[in-house]
């Protein structure tokens, strides 16, 4: 009995953690390189989820929907940076002014995206059944769709980590987030890399959204909650540290899973408590510098 409970919490923690990690890594590289705290991140997640649902209901397999969604999300993120944020950066007198203005703009984009979604889809819950069968493991029955989501989340996290540590572009992203001016001195085209990071962040958000739609009911108001979680994870892991985001995502996922087991409505309270305690004890986050 106790084993079953623990197993449930662990699997739930891994799944939530995997999704949180993906979302937060996206937010983290957007902040790390482009210096924009992108509050509209959750709306991309919401669009990812609802577009997957919409495509699924017209007969497209959710994984195929994901393949269509990723390039689309990249273009949205890239173009948003190129058109709005880059211009904002050019006209801002100081870095501080830019960061403040950029966050305000991202609030605006958040409302625009939320309202567009509301016009298209209204506010009812949407869901579909996907791999709706279970396997038995150590006396617990585990829905296959959740395992599937877990595997995809882990694959995406590992691929993203390899991209950052092994590829030339990934190295330039890490360099730019550690010292943007020095990266420019090395010949990194900083505005281009920032736009790419914005695009990649949106892709990660869209993937997370698609995964969420495979296991939960979704609606057009889920965005903000995920933005808040992503911000908590990024602060928990250390601003701009991608490994920190990954670690923080799983920690929060496990805590969420454990608390939800008692009472799902308490998980957000638990997250806020953790972040408050952490900010007092270790203000730079777990892996922050």
């Amino acid at each position, binding site marked *: 009995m106790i084993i079953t409970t623990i197993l449930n919490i662990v699997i739930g923690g891994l799944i939530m953690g995997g999704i949180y990690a993906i979302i937060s890594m996206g937010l983290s590289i957007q902040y790390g390189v482009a210096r924009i705290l992108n509050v509209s991140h959750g709306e991309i997640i919401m669009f990812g989820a609802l577009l997957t649902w919409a495509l699924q209901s017209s007969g497209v397999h959710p994984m195929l929907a994901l393949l269509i969604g990723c390039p689309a999300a990249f273009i949205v993120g890239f173009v948003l940076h190129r058109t709005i944020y880059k211009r904002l950066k050019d006209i801002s007198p100081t870095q501080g002014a830019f960061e403040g203005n950029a966050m305000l703009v991202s609030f605006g984009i958040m409302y625009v995206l939320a309202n567009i979604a509301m016009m298209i889809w209204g506010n009812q819950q949407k869901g579909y059944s996907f791999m709706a069968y279970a396997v038995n493991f150590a006396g617990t029955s585990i829905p296959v769709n959740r395992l599937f989501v877990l595997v995809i989340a882990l694959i995406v996290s590992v691929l993203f980590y390899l991209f950052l540590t092994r590829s030339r572009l990934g*190295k330039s992203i890490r360099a730019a987030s*550690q*010292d943007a001016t*020095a990266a*420019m*001195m090395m*010949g*990194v085209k900083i505005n281009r890399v920032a736009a790419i990071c914005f695009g990649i962040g949106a892709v990660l958000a869209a993937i997370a959204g698609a995964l969420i739609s495979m296991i939960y009911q979704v609606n057009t108001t889920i965005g903000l909650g995920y933005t808040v979680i992503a911000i908590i994870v990024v602060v928990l892991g250390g601003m701009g540290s991608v490994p920190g985001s990954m670690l923080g995502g799983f920690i929060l996922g496990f805590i969420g899973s454990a608390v939800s087991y008692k009472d799902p409505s308490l998980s957000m309270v638990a997250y806020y408590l953790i972040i408050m305690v952490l900010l007092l004890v270790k203000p730079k986050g777990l892996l922050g510098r």
Partner: protein
Amino acid sequence: MTMLEVSNINCFYGNVQVLWDVSLKVEQAEIVALLGANGAGKTTLLNTITGLMRPKSGHVRFMGESLDNIPSHAILERGIAYLPEGGRLFPEMTIRENLEMGAYPMSLWKHRKENMERVFELFPKLKERQKQLACTLSGGEKQMLAMARGLMSNPKCCLFDELSYGLAPIVVTEVFNIVKSLREQGITVLLVEQNVHQTMEIADRAYVLENGRIVLDGQCCDLVNDDYIKKAYLGL
């Protein structure tokens, strides 16, 4: 051959002018020192040469070609390496990754393995510790890594901004010996320094910048005997 030629540069931060009609020349395989007190405008001049900043008027030429409209990454590809003040390593990257970043532009990236081997010959210590994070290195090792990273682009000309800053005298000697060995390989060096004594020993010529103006220039062997230099910079 003249490698680097700066002519009549005027530079501003907003409305504040910090460089006034600055001109200088560096010949091939010369070590030229650029001396001056804090805030004289030395770093600003290097930023202007490397295209990170543009002058309001005046020109920069490298090997006879104008750099006025060349983006900074392309200036790097043409053969000017810039070692910024304080080294500015990427702290959370390994020695190896920092070196790779020194060869970031596509045309250099292809040759990064050969260049790394060449750089390791000059800095064998770095080779042993390739996987170590830059933030865990000592001050002297950091400066060595910063130099090595600059050399990863296989430059024809190196701009060094305060190489000796914060280093123990013995390490300064070590670093300056490497600068001398660059000259032997035909590499041109423009050396910004506050450590006037030791700089005068290795440099061929020097310029003195004061409040954004070149006030003095000449052969180092003449300058060390110059009364003004003795008083203002050598404390004699």
